[in-house]
């Protein structure tokens, strides 16, 4: 990758990935969003407010924590955890919701729509809307509504209107379809607060920028603690927002290797997984050209993962670009391994991770053993596991 090259280009492409594959009605709205974001980006007062609320409201900076007992257990490289789980609402999602919420207010759009899978982005969006006094409507697949009753209640408590989606596979992918349909219909007064680094330009770059605060902090913190950069950064990848957020500020640090961990679900060979980069092909979904899980006829496939946040058949275009140029390596970890890592982190560190970053923990802990003690791995611990208790109880076959 050439360092002087600014990506995405003016058409929203990371080389062959990205773009704006949306109905005509949304093209002016995307143009308006792009202009508004470019202006906000150049406005120091916008970032001053973002930084101040990130600090006082969300709880930044999050610590970079040396996981000493996990490191000892693995018997190799030193493992550091970037503690996004300690943020307000329990996950990195709040970074993006805050940034886009401020942008929506600046654009004078008072009606906010969002999609959610497990409910983490929905909760983050509802939280920021409550804080900024904006109306919030959250689309959520019916299947997920049933699986995540507590988050549904939480969103309602925060003043959001929840709209269950009964079309298609009734999960995240269909919630995004429905949010886009709402946006097409109410485009004049509505802001679509997309939750991951996916979708049409400028969403992937905008979400990356708001999430890059993770990597910027991590870079400073590791330099302060170890006086050197890490050898590996490992993050889970669904749509890929937490991963791109921690990767991107290190992109020109050539010796820092990136590993994105996707959900292998029941196993890649079973076809019941959500590993778009590992097992997918290039296609267009939700307005962007990227790796997707699709059949021979170009129909998007259903996905499966124990972690609802990784349960998505597409991925952000910048990850597809990183894969194509070899800047990042993408691997997959299945449900069972993720569950094991979930328990391992609880027992070695007293930290309950969300099932999403448990995938990253799993890969990191296996990899650490094969490295020497001088080497450093930073894992993005993107969220807290409280939301997953029901699922883990069930998966472990425990009777409460």
């Amino acid at each position, binding site marked *: 990758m050439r360092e002087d090259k600014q990506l995405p280009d003016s058409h929203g492409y990371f080389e062959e990935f990205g*773009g704006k*594959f*949306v109905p*005509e*009605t949304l093209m*002016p709205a995307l143009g308006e969003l792009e202009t508004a974001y470019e202006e906000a980006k150049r406005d120091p007062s916008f970032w001053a407010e973002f930084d101040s609320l990130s600090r006082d409201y969300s709880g930044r900076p999050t610590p970079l924590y040396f996981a000493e007992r996990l490191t000892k257990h693995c018997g190799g490289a030193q493992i550091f955890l970037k503690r996004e789980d300690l943020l307000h609402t329990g996950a990195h999602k709040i970074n993006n919701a805050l940034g886009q919420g401020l942008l929506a207010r600046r654009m004078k759009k008072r009606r906010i729509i969002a999609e959610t899978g497990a409910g983490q982005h929905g909760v983050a969006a509802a939280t920021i809307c409550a804080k900024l006094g904006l109306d919030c409507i959250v689309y959520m697949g019916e299947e997920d509504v049933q699986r995540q009753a507590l988050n549904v209640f939480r969103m309602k408590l925060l003043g959001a209107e929840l709209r269950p989606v009964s079309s298609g596979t009734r999960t995240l992918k269909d919630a995004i379809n429905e949010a*886009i349909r709402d946006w097409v219909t109410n485009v004049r007064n509505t802001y679509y607060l997309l939750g991951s680094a996916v979708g049409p330009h400028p969403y992937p770059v905008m979400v990356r920028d708001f999430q890059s605060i993770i990597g910027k902090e991590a870079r400073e913190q590791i330099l302060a603690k170890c006086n050197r950069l890490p050898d590996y950064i490992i993050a889970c990848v669904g749509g890929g927002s937490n991963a791109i957020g921690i990767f991107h500020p290190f992109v020109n640090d050539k010796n820092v290797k990136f590993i994105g961990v996707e959900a292998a679900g029941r196993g890649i060979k079973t076809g019941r997984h959500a590993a778009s980069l590992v097992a997918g092909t290039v296609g267009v979904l939700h307005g962007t050209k990227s790796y997707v899980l699709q059949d021979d006829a170009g129909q998007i496939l259903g996905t499966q993962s124990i972690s609802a946040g990784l349960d998505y058949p597409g991925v952000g275009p910048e990850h597809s670009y990183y894969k194509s140029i070899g800047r990042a390596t993408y691997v997959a970890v299945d449900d069972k391994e993720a569950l094991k890592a979930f328990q391992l982190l609880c027992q070695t560190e007293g930290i309950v991770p969300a099932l999403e970053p448990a995938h990253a923990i799993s890969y990191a802990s296996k990899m650490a053993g094969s490295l020497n003690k001088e080497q450093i791995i930073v894992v993005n611990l993107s969220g807290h596991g409280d939301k997953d208790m029901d699922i883990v109880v069930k998966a472990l076959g425990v009777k409460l």
Partner: protein
Amino acid sequence: MSRIASSFAQASHTALIPYITVGYPSVETTLKVVPLFASSGCDIIELGIPFSDPLADGATIQRASYEALRQGITPKLCFELVQELRQRVEIPLVFMTYYNPVLKFGLEQFCSKCAEVGIDGLIIPDLPPEEGKDLEQSTKRHGLDLIYLLSPASTEERIQLVASRSSGFIYLVSLTGVTGARAKLPEELESFVANVRKRTEKPLCVGFGVSTPEQARRIAKVADGVIVGSRIIQLLDEDKSLGSACSFIKCLRAALL
């Protein structure tokens, strides 16, 4: 001149363009209904290749697409059906589908196959002109029209862009929203059409929401064609004998004369 363009050039009336989802409710229905519509005064027929994530479509066409996919409809099968239909109908046929199935098939292969079986044009609602350059190379090579869309939200600049790039006709989306029968069309419909008309000589066809002969008549006063989709799908559902859908088509035809 393409077959679509010449059908507008020769027409003495407003074009009637029905949409049906291929394979809904069954392949047999598609094979029967296309010749019936052609002989009931339709000028062009839009054949929808179902896609798993039809984000420009409302509930009716979503459900039709979902059912068609469950029955195993693929682009390949759609080509075979068109080949069969071409023995029986001469009016222009256009495919309406989303970009991913076309991309997956291969842009060049898809267009070549379209030309081979007798498809005249493509409508791809998630493909704005900015993203259409690759596909345009293949549609041009194979003499297909690539019909772009405009919406009431389109800026002057975008009207110019779409007007310069759309071929066959321009698809004007009557409202900001998804497909689906509406009781009322927006008041600014006429001014929207007139505004586009000032900038192009290409035929303008209005679709989305159209569900009654009265609405069709209103559109006919300003546009060159009327596109009707969801209401037809509903009628195919309600009356499997196809009688209701055919008499609806005839009512529309009468309203447009």
